[in-house]
C-alpha cells in the first residue's frame, strides 16, 4: 500500500513538471500533496498529515491558482537542458550510495531514546542566532532586490 501511494506521488510529481498546460499541472501537484498527506496519516503522523493537506492542498494551491488566473493557461516554451539530467542522475546515485558507505544504524528496529537524538536548538543558543541570521539575510537580500526591481519599473 505504501509503495503504491509513494509511486503514485512520484508519477504525479513528474506529471506536474511535464504538463504543457497550467491547470493540469496544478491538479497533479494538488493530488501529489494530498497523497503524501494521506500517507503521513497512514503512518500514524496524523497532525503532520493534516498539516500537509491543509497547508499544501489548501493554502499554497489557492495561491498558485490565483497566479494561474493572472498568467494564463499555457506554460511558456522551454529549451531542454541536458546537463540538468546529468546533474540529477549524479545526485540521485550519490544519495542512494550513502547508506552503503555509512556504518549500519546502531538502533536498528528500536526507538532511539530522546537523549541520544541529534540535538537541535537545545544546547547552544548560537545555533538559533545563526539560523535567524541566515533568515534575516535572505529577507534583506530579497527586499533590496525587490525594491531595485520596483524602482526600475517606476522609471
Amino acid at each position, binding site marked *: 500500500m*505504501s*509503495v503504491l501511494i*509513494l509511486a503514485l*506521488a*512520484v508519477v504525479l*510529481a*513528474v506529471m*506536474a*513538471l511535464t504538463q504543457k498546460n497550467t491547470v493540469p*499541472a496544478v491538479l497533479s*501537484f494538488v493530488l*501529489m*500533496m494530498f497523497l*503524501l498527506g494521506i500517507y*503521513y496519516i497512514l*503512518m*500514524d*503522523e496524523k497532525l*503532520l498529515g493534516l*498539516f*500537509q493537506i491543509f*497547508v*499544501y492542498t489548501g*493554502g*499554497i494551491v489557492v*495561491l*498558485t491558482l*490565483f*497566479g494561474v488566473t*493572472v*498568467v494564463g493557461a499555457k506554460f*511558456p516554451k*522551454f*529549451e531542454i*537542458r541536458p*546537463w*540538468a*539530467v546529468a*546533474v*540529477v542522475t549524479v*545526485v*540521485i546515485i550519490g*544519495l542512494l550510495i550513502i*547508506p552503503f558507505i555509512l556504518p549500519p*544504524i546502531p538502533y*536498528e*528496529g*528500536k526507538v*532511539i531514546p*530522546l537523549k541520544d*537524538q541529534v*540535538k*537541535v536548538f537545545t544546547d547552544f543558543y548560537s545555533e538559533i542566532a545563526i539560523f535567524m541570521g541566515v533568515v534575516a539575510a535572505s529577507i534583506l537580500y*530579497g527586499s533590496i532586490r*525587490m525594491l531595485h*526591481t*520596483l524602482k*526600475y*519599473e517606476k*522609471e
Partner: protein
Amino acid sequence: MVGFYIDAIFAIILFGVGLYGVTSKNDFLKIFFSLEILLNAVILFLASAAYHFGLTRGLAIAYVIIVIATLEAAAGVLIFLLSYRITGEIIPDKLDKAVSDE
C-alpha cells in the same frame, strides 16, 4: 526497517525530480513546484525516520519546514506576479534581463 528504506528511496527519487525541475525548467511556476517537491521529499524522509526510529526532533523540523514552505509560497507567487507585470511572461531570465537593460 525495510519500510524506512522504501520511504528513503522514494524520498530520494522525489528529491531528484524536484532538483531536475529546479535546474532545467525556465518558468517561475514550475520552479516553484519543484522547490515544493524538494521540501516534501525532505519532509517525507523526516516523517519516515520519526515513525521508524521515534525521531521526534526530526518531526519538529518537518513542521518548521511546512511553515517555511508556506512563507516561501507567498513570496514566490508575489515574485512571479511581479515578473508577469514587468515582462509579460513568467521567465526568470527575462526578468533579470529586463532589470539589467533598464
